[in-house]
């Protein structure tokens, strides 16, 4: 806004100079301003970042954050259960008007409370159990029979979390770690514990009809299926006046009248009638709103999204330097921190099952970043712009542990099986 303000009074060359000054400023710190924060949505303005970056943030919160999506439309007989590792619904009795598939699909869409789920739950593919245990799956049961003369709504509130048939299964050894990180309502339908909330209607049944089923909820990300997206909507806008002409407004008579300005237009100064087109201008201010389905809070979605971005970047760096050593002290200088010698990635892999974070957490001889830095940088005071020398990596362990990586939900980056995580060299 300040930028536009100045432009109005300056010649074209001055404008360019000013633009360059502004661009150098742009390299400076990003600005975040939260305009509105509600229980399940956050509206914020992001400034001084690149369009590509802002878009990556949008993409990552939409598609890369793990949550517990329930129940999927796969029908299997009980005997076949052990063969599969996908979410499923077993229908014991369905005398409703809706076919099984229909109901299973509806069940899949029910948002389940998944706060902290990347620490509190494992991906089934990373779990050591054969086909689902209490660490990697949550069992829900629904049993409704109508004996009244009126129609009954079967809703997501009828779903009850029950212990699974496998009990603690084979993963008994580390069960406490994940399970202790779960909140009291972990895996429950979102509306169930919220007074006044409308539950999800699954089916309506009349007298004599019955719906009885059991289903499994598993952790996943929305790239696999949209039911795992914690976001119901993400809005993203920049340049409300279309000063950058990234879009063309089709109009019949009057562009202004036919394309009314949105509320974000008040954040920026409208271009003057005779203002020349600044073809060097870049978008710099982004208006975003992230609305979740309730499975995760808006705040958690944003923080996990940022952590996930870091994970992606960190994995890329790891990939460029396959023989990367593990001794990356928290006090090292940005890139240099990786360059010092010491046990390399392959060597220290033996420390703890090959998982990065695990290795660093358990092996005192590699004083790695997982320990030296407070995960997530310990908040605003201790990091970021104020500490340019601070190694960027200090932020990543949380990225791995928090974001869950793609490998697994355990302590670090990896899954128990390093090979499945793909970082084997």
């Amino acid at each position, binding site marked *: 806004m300040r930028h536009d303000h100045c432009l109005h009074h300056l010649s074209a060359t001055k404008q360019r100079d000013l633009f360059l000054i502004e661009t150098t400023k742009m*390299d400076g710190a990003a600005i975040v*301003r939260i305009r509105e924060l509600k229980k399940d949505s956050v509206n914020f303005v992001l400034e001084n970042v690149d369009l590509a970056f802002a878009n990556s943030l949008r993409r990552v919160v939409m598609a890369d954050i793990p949550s517990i999506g329930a129940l999927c439309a796969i029908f299997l007989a009980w005997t076949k259960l052990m063969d599969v590792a996908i979410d499923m619904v077993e229908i014991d009795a369905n005398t409703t008007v809706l076919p099984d598939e229909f109901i299973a699909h509806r069940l899949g869409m029910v948002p389940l409370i998944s706060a902290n789920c990347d620490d509190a739950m494992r991906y089934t593919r990373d779990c050591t159990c054969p086909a689902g245990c209490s660490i990697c799956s949550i069992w829900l049961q629904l049993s409704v029979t109508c004996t009244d003369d009126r129609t009954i709504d079967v809703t997501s509130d009828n779903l009850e979390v029950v212990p699974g048939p496998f009990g603690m299964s084979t993963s008994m050894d580390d069960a406490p770690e994940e399970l202790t990180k779960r909140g009291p309502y972990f895996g429950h339908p979102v509306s169930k514990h919220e007074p006044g909330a409308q539950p999800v209607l699954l089916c309506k049944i009349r007298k004599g009809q019955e719906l009885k089923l059991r289903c499994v909820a598993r952790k996943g990300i929305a790239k696999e299926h949209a039911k795992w997206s914690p976001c119901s909507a993400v809005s993203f806008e920049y340049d409300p006046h279309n000063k950058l002409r990234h879009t063309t407004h089709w109009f019949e008579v009057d562009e202004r009248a036919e394309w009314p300005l949105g509320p974000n237009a008040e954040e920026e100064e409208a271009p003057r009638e005779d203002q020349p087109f600044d073809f060097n201008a870049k978008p710099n201010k982004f208006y975003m709103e992230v609305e979740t389905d309730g499975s995760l809070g808006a705040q958690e979605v944003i923080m996990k999204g940022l952590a996930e971005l870091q994970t992606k*970047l960190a994995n890329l760096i790891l990939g460029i330097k*396959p023989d990367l050593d593990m001794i990356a002290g928290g006090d090292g200088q940005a890139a240099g921190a990786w360059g010092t010698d010491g046990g390399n990635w392959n060597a220290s892999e033996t420390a703890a099952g090959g998982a990065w974070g695990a290795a660093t957490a358990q092996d005192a001889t590699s004083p790695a970043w997982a320990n030296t830095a407070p995960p997530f*940088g*310990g908040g605003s005071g201790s990091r970021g712009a104020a500490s340019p020398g601070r190694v960027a990596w200090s932020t990543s362990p*949380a990225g791995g542990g928090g974001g869950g990586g793609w490998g697994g939900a355990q302590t670090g980056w990896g899954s128990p099986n390093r090979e499945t995580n*793909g970082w084997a060299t």
Partner: protein
Amino acid sequence: MNAINRHELFVLDEGENPVEVTEDTKIPNAATIRIAKQDHTLGNMVRAQLLSMPSVLFAGYKVPHPLQPYFIIKVQTDGTVTPQFALETACNDLIKMVGDLEGKFKREFAFKDADGATGSNATGGPTAGGDDPYGGGGWSEGKDYLDF
């Protein structure tokens, strides 16, 4: 019917290299880097960051086929650094920036929570304050966003 399994979009195959660098034989200081199991989210962000570096002459990325879960990024530098190093620096810068942003978001969230106490109970986070997965060092109230 030609699409791969959805989970193969983001889980590396056994023995698959996450990153493969092919140096260009005809153009000096240029390399093509293939990054497996990643998409525009990473590619575009890294490309933009590379372009902002003075030592980078060219940076571009593409996802060659929508059904194949990888992208390639081409980088040419002016010779002062190798393309790999440029890419690494770009990633480091981005990580720093994301870290910075995390701090700022945290502060903003803390302010907003102080204002309206809008935190969610419904998400049922762990109630134990000590069980803070994010360190929580910067939170003067000693609260974590999962604790509301």
